[in-house]
Structures are given as C-alpha cells and as structure tokens.
C-alpha cells in the first residue's frame, strides 16, 4: 500500500459517501454543503491523476461559482420551514432504485471486462495537466470551440436575466 493508493481510497470513499448524502438529505442547504465536500474530493482525485489545472478549476468554478448560485437560490426561494416534500418510500422509488442498481451492475461488469488490468502510467500523464499545456492546446487546436463557448455563456447570461425578471413579457 503506497501513499498514492491510500489517498485514492480516502478520496474515492469520501466522494461516494458525500454523493449519497447529497441525494438522501431532506434539507437542500445540507445537500448543498455535502455537494461542496464532494467537489473537493473530486478535485483531490483529479490531483492524483496529475490534472492540476482541472482540479483548481473544479474548486473555483464548481465549489465557488456554481454552488454560490445554488445556495443563493435556496435563500431567495425562502421556503421557510421547508415545505414538507414527503420523503416516503413509495413503490415507485424502490423500483427506480432497483433499476438503477441493475444498470450500475451492468456498467461495472462492462468496465471489469474491458479494462481489467490497465494501469495508469503517471509518468506519461506527467506534464499534460499543467496550465501551460492546457492553455497551449486551448488557444491553438481548440480555438474555435473555445470561442463558441463564449457565445454559449453570453446566451446563458441573457437567458438567465430574462427568465428571472419579475414580469415575463
């Protein structure tokens, strides 16, 4: 057991447990906090894969920007003593969970069959995750998608303002 493997297991179990907490908690604020913890676990997993840029962007964009938006909306809706969305265990939910579990088993089976003994050679992945490498690829090979992303973001800004306006006319 090297340090690397121990770290992986800690982060992986942390990620899975916080993910379960996100979908099972009654209170949306508690879910949001667990989701932030989950994002940090994922950022750690990215670091174990030597993807430094993605890891830091994960914390900035997801844990920073997007989760602030979520918490802000929860606050804005001001549900008071949170409308009791009954969390009863109906037959529908059990069936849904059963089907999801079956699909999960199927996916795990395929992963096991196809990628049985492949290991990640971090020496090969060593320098591709740096800001320099990603920036170079982004502004040369992927310049057009990058510019299109700006169009997407401007459309999202306009759409969000329009939708959240008081009077929709």
């Amino acid at each position, binding site marked *: 057991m090297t340090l*690397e493997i121990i770290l*992986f297991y800690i982060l*992986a179990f942390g*990620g*899975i447990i916080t*993910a379960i907490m*996100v*979908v099972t908690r009654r209170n*949306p604020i508690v*879910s*949001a906090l667990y989701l932030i913890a989950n994002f940090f676990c*994922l950022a750690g*997993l*990215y670091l*174990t*894969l*030597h*993807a430094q840029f*993605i890891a830091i962007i994960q914390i900035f964009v*997801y844990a920073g920007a*997007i989760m602030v938006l*979520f918490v802000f*909306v*929860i606050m804005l*809706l001001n*549900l008071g003593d949170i409308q009791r*969305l*009954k969390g009863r265990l109906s037959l529908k939910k059990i069936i*849904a*969970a059963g089907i*999801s579990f079956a*699909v*999960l088993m199927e996916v*795990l089976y395929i*992963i*096991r069959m196809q*990628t*049985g*003994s*492949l*290991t*990640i*050679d971090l020496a*090969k*992945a060593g320098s*591709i*995750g740096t800001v320099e*490498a990603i920036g170079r690829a*982004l502004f040369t090979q*992927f310049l057009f*998608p990058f510019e299109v*992303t700006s169009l*997407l*973001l401007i459309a*999202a800004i306009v759409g*969000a*303002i329009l*939708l959240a306006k*008081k009077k*929709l006319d």
Partner: protein
Amino acid sequence: MVSLQSYLIVSAIMFMIGAVGVVTRRNVIIVFMSIELMLNSVNLTLVAFSAYFGDITGQILVFFVMALAAAEAAVGLAIIIALFRRKQTINLDQINIMKW
C-alpha cells in the same frame, strides 16, 4: 499504481447515485444538484482516460463541460425562480402542466 478500473468504478457509482437522485427526489433544487453530480462523475471518467492515454483532449473536454455546467446552472436556476414565482412550489409532482 492505481488502475484505470478503480477510477471508472468510482465514477460509475457516483453517476448512478446521481441518477437515483434525479428519479426519486421531488425537490427541484436537489434534482438539479444530482445532475451536477452526474456531470462531475463523467468528468472524472474523462480525466482518467486522459491520464491513461497521455492525451490532453479529455481534459479540454472537461473544461468545456464545466463551462456548459455553469451556463446550465444559471439558466436552470432562473427557470426555478420563475416557476416558484408562478406556482409557489418547488415540488416536481405539482409542476405538472406539461405532463399528460
């Protein structure tokens, strides 16, 4: 050395937890968070394969997925606010005007 398989398994489990959240929870905001969870688990797969092949394309794709998730969260939360203003509820069972 951690194998590629372990990353894929973690990612598959997290994706399925997110999917269960989407189909079982009735609170719109929590459904939204579950979608973010699913997007994130796919990102983990992409980064794992990127590291395995030593190819940068996977990480570039993760970058674009994050931009998309930000746009999606902004628009989706604006829709939730507009919906709440109109119907005074965020329970998905009561937002059924487009359901046959």
